[in-house]
């Protein structure tokens, strides 16, 4: 069984067997779980259907394909289309429920990995030791980190940034992002709407800010923009921590 489906099944199973939990959950939450499960099944099926359809078309395109084989291939393609049509509403269940799969993520590891892939920017890392894992989704957290670079790169082609991770006085996991930009308060407001160009392609900073905020919200974190005493811009991100068991 595909890994993702097995995981969803296990989640449902845990809910079903965890004593008094189901009555505590509202029927709405149960429906969401079921929707996520069905949507995951549909999503996992998309991949083999894509392969099946593509190989059937490759056979159809082959010059040695006889009319009889072609007839069978058309049957396969028709079955694929039907399956696709049946899966489509299930796929939208997953999309409407969101793809979040909260699981423990080692924040420092993600930061280091991403930082090693931005050769045009010098990244100075100050990573907190023995940092607890954050609760979130690896893809969303990767999205957050690389969006930070995009935001800086967009506004002035920054060449050096500094990232620090740690735990603040409120016992929250923090990621502080400093670049060498010094916007005035008026310019800070421009961060929400300035356009910029990389590789002759127009980007919208507004979109990046939106992605950043949306991604942090989806992992139940938050982001704030402040100006440091020396007039530099600082982004502070708060991540939810994995709660210790027991």
């Amino acid at each position, binding site marked *: 069984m595909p890994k993702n489906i097995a995981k969803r099944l296990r989640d449902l199973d845990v809910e079903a067997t965890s004593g008094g939990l189901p009555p505590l959950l509202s029927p709405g939450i149960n429906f969401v779980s079921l929707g996520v499960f069905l949507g995951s099944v549909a*999503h996992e099926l*998309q*991949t*083999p*259907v*894509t*392969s*099946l*359809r*593509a*190989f059937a*078309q*490759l056979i159809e*395109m082959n010059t040695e394909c006889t009319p009889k084989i072609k007839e069978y291939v058309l049957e396969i393609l028709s079955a*694929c289309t039907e399956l*696709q049509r049946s899966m489509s509403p299930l*796929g*939208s269940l997953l*999309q409407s429920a969101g*793809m979040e799969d909260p699981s423990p993520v080692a924040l420092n590891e993600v930061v280091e*990995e*991403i930082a090693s*892939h*931005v*050769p*045009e*920017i010098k990244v100075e890392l100050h990573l907190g030791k023995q940092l607890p894992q954050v609760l979130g989704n690896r*893809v969303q957290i*990767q*999205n957050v980190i*690389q*969006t930070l*670079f*995009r935001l800086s*790169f*967009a*506004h*002035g*082609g920054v060449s050096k940034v500094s990232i620090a991770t740690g735990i603040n006085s409120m016992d929250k996991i923090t990621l502080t992002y400093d670049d060498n*930009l*010094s*916007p005035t308060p008026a*310019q800070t407001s*421009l*961060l929400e709407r*300035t*356009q*910029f*160009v*990389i*590789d*002759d*392609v*127009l*980007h*919208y900073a507004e*979109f*990046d800010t939106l*992605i950043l905020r949306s991604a942090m919200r989806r992992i139940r974190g938050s982001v704030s923009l402040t100006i440091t005493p020396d007039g530099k811009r600082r982004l502070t991100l708060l991540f939810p921590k994995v709660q210790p068991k027991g």
Partner: protein
Amino acid sequence: MNPMKKKILVVEDDVHIQTALKAFLESKGYEVSVASDGYAGIDALLREEPDLLLLDINMPRLDGLNALGLMRFTERKVPPVIIVSSLGDRENVLKAVGFAADDFVRKPFDLHDLGRRVEQQLLTLDFHTLHEILEKLTIADLTRPEKFSRFKIPDWIPYSSHYRGLKVCVLMNPEAGAKHPLSLTYEQCLTELVVLADYKSGWRSIWPKQIPEFMKPEKKQSVG
């Protein structure tokens, strides 16, 4: 290795889809290389210098959209990108547009449709195919110049046309002295004519290959 062959990089984690795409694209005469996750895709982009990228979203280690975001930081110019994914919901399509992807194909895809889109993205015009466009010209009204914001549009005569399913805008220098673009010589076409095609990610120049300097936008705009 044929230097004339267009190179396509397929970044896809499913080995069956990789194989099918490779077989199909090679049958169309392209040179194909594959990578199985976002980080491998970034490394392959730097190594292979492809002319086109087919990029899946849902992949291990690093997903396609985040990989595309990081590719924009590399020294290598990112070629046209077609996102090929089953995550065709509004949010992912919007994200793909935000990361300046050029097209979005939903899985399960039709190979013929994918082939047509690949062809569109790799479109190169010679003088003969340019004439196919010029033969179908009508005068255009550039009422929404902001759509062309990746270019500095000169005060040239705008025409519209279509080519291989793409909307096309032809701009002609009025000082060329010709009544119709069709009457321009090859040399005049290189300097007095610009053809822009309407891709999902915005308008892109398809003639000449290098757009004139005066039409290029500022590389970066700083708020500082």
